[in-house]
């Protein structure tokens, strides 16, 4: 996993959530800290799937609660 992909994911999430990248620390909780609801969550998942041409199973989505976990998830499916 290169840093460029981490930056890509961070920028994508920042754009969808309309949150500056500076506020997207790896451990900031999407739901508790950024008030992400089911609509924003599915938007992130759909954008992520389209960009990396993968399918995220529905049961995996609740496990991805912050940027760090999203990057780790990408790392795991890429390895």
């Amino acid at each position, binding site marked *: 996993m290169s840093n460029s992909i981490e930056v890509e994911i961070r920028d994508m999430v920042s754009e969808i959530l309309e949150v500056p990248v500076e506020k997207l620390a790896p451990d900031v909780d999407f739901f508790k800290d950024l008030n992400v*609801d089911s609509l924003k969550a599915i938007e992130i998942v*759909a954008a992520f799937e389209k960009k990396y041409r993968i399918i995220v199973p*529905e049961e995996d989505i609740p496990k991805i609660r912050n940027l760090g976990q999203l990057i780790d998830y990408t790392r795991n499916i890429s390895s």
Partner: protein
Amino acid sequence: MKWDQEKIKSILPHRDPFLFIDEVIEIDGMQKVVAVKHIKETEKYFEGHFPGRPIFPGVLLIEAMAQSSIILYSIVKPDIVKRCPEYYLGKVNSEFILPVYPGDELILETTNVKILDQAAITDNLAKVNGKVVAKANFIFSIQINE
């Protein structure tokens, strides 16, 4: 015809004059549905939209495509739909291309982008005589009443 009015009403909570699906004519697995709305000259809203020059309102094109999206959702998530959830349109990205008139047969093609228990994304085309009259991408939420 795949679904008649009775079947449609068992899924959609909408009723006349706000039910905008007359038939479901095609179901492609969990990926796509094609529905039909016959635009009748007697529809009440044509009296005001516009007097002497009736045009099917664009906002109702959105509503018809949204109802078609619920039909697709019900095929993917039948167990949730049995619990009579509420549907809330959250985000709409739409384009209106051609006017729709009384007497037109509106074909609504809805495609699955991503459907989860509590939220869904669909792509929609509305067509008349094979021509695309409107396009829309929807993100909507599904609230289950406990």
